[in-house]
């Protein structure tokens, strides 16, 4: 691709990204918002491809547009599709967003131009990876894999551990887990029988509660 073609693709993708972002903010329908967020991820993946970061684009498309959209849809099934009207004014958040955005745009003035060979990012270990990874790691054409799995093996190990930790955290918060041996409810202990599901237990406790309340009601009538 020529330089000008790349620029046209960049501009088109960025405009689409901006439109999607604004649409996510504007909509009150959460289903639409989730779908647009998925599209946002897909467009970001396209931008990464244009920047030759295909590994990152692949991950963004699979996780951002795929799995997280499904997880958000699962959440919507629980909380409903309508967003309630905000209780506060939007002036302060808008102010903060504009100031933060302004600072970020100001910061880009200091960033070295994209793809220049004498950028700081290309000065340290990058040249070593490109020149010597063939001899050190073996003839793996994708240097990204050499860097991720071998040179930066510690980092990737940490990432794997973080993903595992995320699972443990979500399971602790959301999983229904296994039932305890007995449950204290309405003044006495219920023994959990073998093979009993949570629904069985709740039904049994509700039965007993209803039974108890009729007994109490009966006593009340006698007193009257």
């Amino acid at each position: 691709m020529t330089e000008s073609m790349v620029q046209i693709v960049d501009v088109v993708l960025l405009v689409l990204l901006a439109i999607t972002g604004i649409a996510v903010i504007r909509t009150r329908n959460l289903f639409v918002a989730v779908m647009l967020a998925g599209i946002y991820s897909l467009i970001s993946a396209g931008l990464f491809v244009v920047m030759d970061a295909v590994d990152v684009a692949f991950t963004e498309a699979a996780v951002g547009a795929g799995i997280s959209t499904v997880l958000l849809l699962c959440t919507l099934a629980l909380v409903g599709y309508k967003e309630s009207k905000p209780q506060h004014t939007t002036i302060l958040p808008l102010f903060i967003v504009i100031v933060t955005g302004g600072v970020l745009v100001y910061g880009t003035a200091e960033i070295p131009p994209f793809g220049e060979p004498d950028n700081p990012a290309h000065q340290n270990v990058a040249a070593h990876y490109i020149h010597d990874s063939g001899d050190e790691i073996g003839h793996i054409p994708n240097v990204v894999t050499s860097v991720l799995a071998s040179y930066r093996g510690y980092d990737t190990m940490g990432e794997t551990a973080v993903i595992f930790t995320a699972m443990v955290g979500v399971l602790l918060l959301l999983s229904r887990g296994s039932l305890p041996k007995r449950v204290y409810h309405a003044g006495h202990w219920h023994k959990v029988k073998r093979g009993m599901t949570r629904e069985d237990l709740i039904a049994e406790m509700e039965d007993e509660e209803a039974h108890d309340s009729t007994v109490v009601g009966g006593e009340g009538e006698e007193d009257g």
Partner: protein
Amino acid sequence: MDDRVILRVGTKVLSPFILLFALYVQFHGDYGPGGGFQAGVIFAAVFVLYALVFGLERAMKVMPAKVAYACGALGVALYLGVGYLSMFRGGEFLNYSYLFDPEHDPTHGQHYGIIGVELGVLVTVFGVMVALFYAFAGRRRIDT
């Protein structure tokens, strides 16, 4: 059973190909974009798709939640195992050159080391993604 024949048949026909594609992404990571993380997500996507079309209960029969949890832990153990193995073979932790005789050809060990840790990443990411989906979807049953 519902009448969405195209979805059900389509899912059954596509699933093996998606699994195969995940393996392609896994083992093609040395030559092009891809690797354990992306492959794990694609692998998990098959079971997510299955659960969306056939219901969570049937998906949990195909891939029990306990297996997914075990995979999540097993992958990390595999990664650490490769690291410790290279340590016990006389190198540093995660220095795969020592997995095989480093005097002869260190890249041999590097090659297998990378395959080992990428497999660990695949197994963990697959297990965690499926477990997360089960945890979210299980809060209310997905009825088909």
